């Protein structure tokens, strides 16, 4: 591989990693920090993508559609938490698995009823549709750079909120001992509702941002779900920094694997994860 190609692929890898982080960000918050096992996270990603596709067709503007979709997702998150998740806090984690698998079924079915099963695509908003010349016969789209910037911004914000603010401490404390947080006079119910909803919104936002770059198809949620879990686990539960580094590593490694040994490239991230866990059974950034 020439040095030029190496750098091109490195950039591809980083960009893919950043996108992975974006998709995993909500999961890190809800699963890594709050400790709620939400397997329907991928469905929220799917909902975001379908919503923005639908709303772009209705409103004609990507920006408006994106904003609306995010707000709808937030509402959806509140609804889900209040109606369902909230009933399971005192129960086994496995009940959450069951519940959220049921939710996957429902969302997949609703998607097919509401929006049909054709594959869709959203075109890149005009303002960001330019491309920067890159190598002699290829160029780099501005939208992807924009997406990368959004990813970094969200990563930074999330890291700041979770590890530096009082809110973040409360969220983490809630994962450790809900009863005690409440005994400190904190309305943990509402807090968790809001944070869960934000997690859902983050998933949807990543669906929105990814929509112009990817295809919108049934089952798109499940296909990213496992990769997101891999990212969170490699980084170490509860660590935003870990998830970020994990995402970049997975992105870069799978990009290079895809070029150098394509037939193995899906296995590579699993092999990588197994290696990481054998050396550090709690992930890279475990406390």
């Amino acid at each position, binding site marked *: 591989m*020439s040095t*030029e*190609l190496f750098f*091109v*692929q490195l950039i*591809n*890898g980083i*960009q*893919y990693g950043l996108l992975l982080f974006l998709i995993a960000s909500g999961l890190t918050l809800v699963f890594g920090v709050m400790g709620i096992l939400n397997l329907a996270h991928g469905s929220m990603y799917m909902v975001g993508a379908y919503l923005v596709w639908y709303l772009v067709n209705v409103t004609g503007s990507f920006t408006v559609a994106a904003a609306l979709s995010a707000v709808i997702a937030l509402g959806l998150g509140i609804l889900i938490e209040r109606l369902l998740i909230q009933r399971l806090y005192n129960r086994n984690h496995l009940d959450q698995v069951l519940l959220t698998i049921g939710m996957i079924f429902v969302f*997949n*079915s609703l998607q*097919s009823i509401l929006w*049909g*099963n*054709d*594959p*869709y*695509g959203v*075109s*890149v908003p005009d303002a960001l549709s330019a*491309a920067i*010349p*890159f*190598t002699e*016969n*290829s*160029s*780099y*789209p501005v*939208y*992807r750079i924009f997406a990368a910037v959004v990813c970094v911004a969200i990563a930074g914000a999330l890291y700041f909120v979770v590890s530096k603010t009082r809110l973040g401490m409360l969220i983490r404390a809630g994962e450790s001992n809900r009863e005690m947080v409440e005994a400190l006079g904190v309305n943990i119910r509402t807090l968790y509702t809001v944070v869960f909803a934000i997690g859902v919104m983050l998933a949807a936002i990543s669906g929105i941002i990814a929509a112009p*770059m*990817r*295809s*919108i*198809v*049934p*089952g*798109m949620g499940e*296909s990213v779900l496992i990769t997101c879990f891999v990212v969170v686990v490699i980084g170490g539960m509860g660590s935003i920094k870990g998830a970020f580094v994990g995402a970049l590593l997975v992105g870069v490694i*799978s*990009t*290079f694997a*895809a*070029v150098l040994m*394509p*037939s193995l*490239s*899906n*296995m590579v991230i699993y092999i990588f994860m197994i290696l990481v866990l054998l050396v550090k059974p709690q992930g890279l950034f475990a406390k």
Partner: protein
Amino acid sequence: ATDPVKIGLMLPFSGIYAQLGEAGRDGLKLALKQNAAELDGVTFEYIALDTEAKPARAPELASSLLNQHNADFIVGPVHSGVAMGMIKMLRGKDTIMIIPNAGSAAATGPLCAPNIFRTSFSSWQPSYPMGQVALDKGYKKVYAISWNYGMGRESLDAFEESFTAGGGEIVEKVLLPFPSTNFQSHVSDIAATNPDAVFTFFAGGGAIKFVKDYDAMGLRGKIPLLGSGFLTEGTLEAQGPAAEGVMTTLHYAEQLDVPANQAFREAFNTEYGHYPDIYAVQGYDAGLAIANTIEKLNGDITDKQAVISTMEKLTIDSPRGEFTFSKAHNPIQNIYLREVKDGVNVVQSIAAKSLEDPARGCKL
């Protein structure tokens, strides 16, 4: 005839392939409805089972259609793995199995059987002619890329077969794990390799993603993109301008200038409110095969041997042009070269006339 003829459908109605399943079903029903008049009173009963494209459930569902519902015809599936499970159950049985999509070579190859028909294609068919097309266009070095599964591998092999036979060179052959859609790094690799052209097999969401990535990284218009026709089937709208100029070969094209096609498209649109795609055509042809057979037998389908020999000899007036069945029960059909212009697959020429699958390994 008093008892309705039972048609079992084993198609995916949920999951990634749901669109294909639904289109196939709609096409089939349309064909039988249109031909109802000629079938002197024969009525149909449909039993539709959702395969979810899960091979593990295939034998069980096939057994349900066979033993529980006593279906006379079983139409399905979309997914090759499911096809294998069905074939395991149905091979050598009395019930006729008509495959409306799955391209797996084995189905009309080593596993071919008198009661198994296919109205779609073998994976070999749509890709083989592209080799010659590429040579004609003067491409010498081609980068081939697809998913590493049956259909993907067989498509690339078929292309390679004709392309290298004519002196072309495959500079790189990449098989990605299915269903990964992280194509960006490969597109960069293509840019760096700088071949004369690229040949692909992708379908559905992967096809959209690949074409979009290809365009986004600036390769469109610089390195021609060739593909098996599924690259731009049912995906064109989502691909938008990114698909302009993509050349593909397939046994059908929406704008195909065949009388049956125009009539079919309009009828489909009036029935379902949208225009059909290739998957609907294949389902429609499965329906035609059933209808024509019943018609020829005057509604008496009790003798399965007669049903098989009748069906074998049919000439089906398909929207893709007339076709007949080969010995292995695979369609002998034209393959068209299409190019995307203004969001439409425009037929350029007939890339191969009455192409028959070699049916390697079939002993029929």
